[in-house]
């Protein structure tokens, strides 16, 4: 059964999905390091290629992934556009159109930024999407010894965050039913702010009620127990090793091809 509260629904249970949440976060961090250390197309490209090829292993609904993450390439393109115009204008002139000047170097930098933004964002978002928040809370408390009251409160609040999407849809319907949706751009904008405010009020109310409901079921009492044990298995080791190899390959390839362009130094 699909959970409407999830950003991207997990439709298949793969080995990666069953990994410990801490493993997934470690993987995401390792992959990000591979793309982060240098601004070049190669290292970021390797990480991005691996992430895209690995998408089926995440068990996510691929169509939904594309529908929900369309803004990533759009945002990356925007960042690349900015880079192409603003980067140092060295190398051959490719486009010279009035104030618009792009050179081979500025375009190369733009391409690197584009790939890099995606390589940084996609592994993180995709891996985090496969994490059941409850498993994460179990892991954080049982392995990292984080304070349970804080973790569970954040967990419960994060469920509300997930609900914001469906809540927003209900709000949109409610405004349509009352005749204030649509119309001119000015009216739409005003209406949007109104909706954001209602969403805020509803969320705060809901959070207050939720806090009461949690307290009402003895939350905050010392000596809490756990229904599930968070554990690690061989697949967790394999997952981390995989991401280490990708990270190494990315950095190595950039060095071998002579495009290594470190952000520090």
């Amino acid at each position, binding site marked *: *059964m*699909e*959970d*409407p*509260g999830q950003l991207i629904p997990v439709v298949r249970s793969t080995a990666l999905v069953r990994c410990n949440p801490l493993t997934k976060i470690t993987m995401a961090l390792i992959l990000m390091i591979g793309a982060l250390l240098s601004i070049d197309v190669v290292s970021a490209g390797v990480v991005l290629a691996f992430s895209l090829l690995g998408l089926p292993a995440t068990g996510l609904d691929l169509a*939904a992934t594309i529908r929900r993450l369309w803004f990533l390439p759009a945002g990356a393109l925007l960042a690349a556009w900015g880079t192409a115009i603003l980067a140092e204008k060295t190398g051959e002139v490719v486009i010279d159109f009035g104030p618009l000047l792009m050179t081979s170097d500025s375009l190369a930098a733009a391409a690197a930024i584009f790939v890099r933004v995606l390589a940084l964002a996609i592994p993180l978002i995709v891996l985090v999407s496969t994490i*059941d*928040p*409850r498993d994460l809370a179990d892991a954080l408390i049982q392995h990292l010894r984080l304070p349970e009251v804080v973790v569970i409160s954040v*967990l*419960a609040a994060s*469920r509300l965050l*997930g*609900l914001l999407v*469906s*809540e927003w*849809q*209900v*709000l949109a*319907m*409610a*405004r*349509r*039913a*009352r*005749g*204030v*949706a*649509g*119309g001119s751009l000015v009216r739409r904008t005003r209406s949007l702010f*109104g909706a954001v405010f*209602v969403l805020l*009020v*509803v969320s705060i*109310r*809901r959070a*207050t*009620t*939720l*806090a*009461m*409901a*949690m*307290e*009402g*079921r*003895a*939350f*905050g*009492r*010392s*000596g*809490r*127990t*756990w*229904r*599930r*044990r968070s554990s690690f298995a061989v697949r967790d080791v394999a997952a981390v090793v995989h991401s280490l190899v990708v990270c190494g390959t990315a950095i190595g390839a950039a060095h071998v091809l002579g495009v290594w362009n470190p952000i520090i130094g």
Partner: protein
Amino acid sequence: MGLPITAREYSWTHADRDAPAVGPLDLEITAGERVLVLGRSGAGKSTLLHALAGVLPDESGEATGELLVGNAPPDPRRGGSGLVLQDPESQVIFSRVGDDVAFGMENLGLPAEVIESRIPGSLAALGLDLPLDHPTAALSGGQKQRLALAGIHAMSPEVIILDEPTANIDPDSAAEVRDSVLSVQTAASATMVIVEHRAGLWLDHVDRVIVLGPHGLLAQGPPKRIFSDRSLSEALIDCGIWMPHGSETTSGGGLSPTAEAAICSSPGDGRGDVLLRAAGLAVGRPRAKAPVAAGIDLAVRAGEAVGIVGPNGAGKSTTALTLAGLLPEFAGRVTAEAALRGESKHARPFAWPSALLAPRIGMVFQEPAHQFLTSGVAAELSLGPRLAGWSDAEVDDRVVQLLDVLGLQVLAEAHPQSLSGGEKRRLSVAAMLAPRPQVLIVDEPTFGQDALTWAGLVELFVDALDRGSAVVAVSHDHAFLDAIGARRVDLGAFSTSSTARAGAGERGE
């Protein structure tokens, strides 16, 4: 073993109001006693329950006097009490059904094996036949209420505190839900305090009834004495208490002559024009892979009331939203006939722009807070008529009339989001009724109402029907459906979920 509850001159005042929400009141509830709290909508019943559970936030108001559970002020951290709040939507804690039921037991520090072994039993006791990893976000309102009760059931607390526990439960299983609650109470000899407007379900099962008036305690005693005391009955009726004797429809006491007349006449005589038609309709939430209900054929005529009934999770709300042109049809078609369509070129309400939809089809959502667009009760009521182009005088008349019928005059300037549950519900219904749409689709319009405000709502609906509007009401409240003369459409028969169908089948016998 239950704990006694004592209140001495106890009162609680919300930070932004002058008058106390509760009290001052004196109470002596003995250990293991079962108490039903009654009172008009907005009398502070919920606040009292929150105080008993010890969950009233300190910064939100001021308490005077003394309130003791056992021999100490209420403190949820002691772990002895279990509270279910009024709004089932806001008290789902985790994203999976099994985890949610386990939450209270985990807090109590029960061993994992015990927790695991109790979950299925508690789910079954509340009639939730779902896998443990079922996402809670996919549950209907009624199912969420059952889930919260299952959490309390599993905890087996010493003090059970429930705010309208059966308000969202379909009437055919309300008794079953009540018995599950009672079995927990009996097993633990727990003290139980319940708020419920429809007292009938509980009267034979409680030891005492407490009636909250505007200034503290109005009356208390065994249910038989409270309701047989002639000198008291007038005060109870004035307070909007549902009187349990006599037939359900007339027990309101405050039922207006118009509403009484409506029960006798039958507005649904089928002579009005068809306004809205559903053919082979299947409904489902956006992104859902399968419909929740399918094969619905329905014609809604002008001046006719249709009640959509069925067990929890049968797809009643989804059907309402689809008929209202707010959700696309999963399959099949919802069409507006000529009388409703007017000059619009589209026959499907879903294709209409908002400005065209609102004056034709009004929809009252299950969750009232979503619909409020302004910062005052009166402003909220005037918005619809104003958008529909009414003159100022007409708008003002309409607002005054609505405030009066629904007993919201004193709250005209209050912020809609600051109202009590029952008041919000009334306001959301009235705001939709205000511009007199041709078709009114309402989802649980009578939730949280006392007998007086209930009668006010009935009056408004009857008035709308008399003026030739059609009303489609999703409701568990059969007395309401009878009062507006609604014919029933049982969605259990169209539901694609096996449990809902089974439920419908049982009722058919």
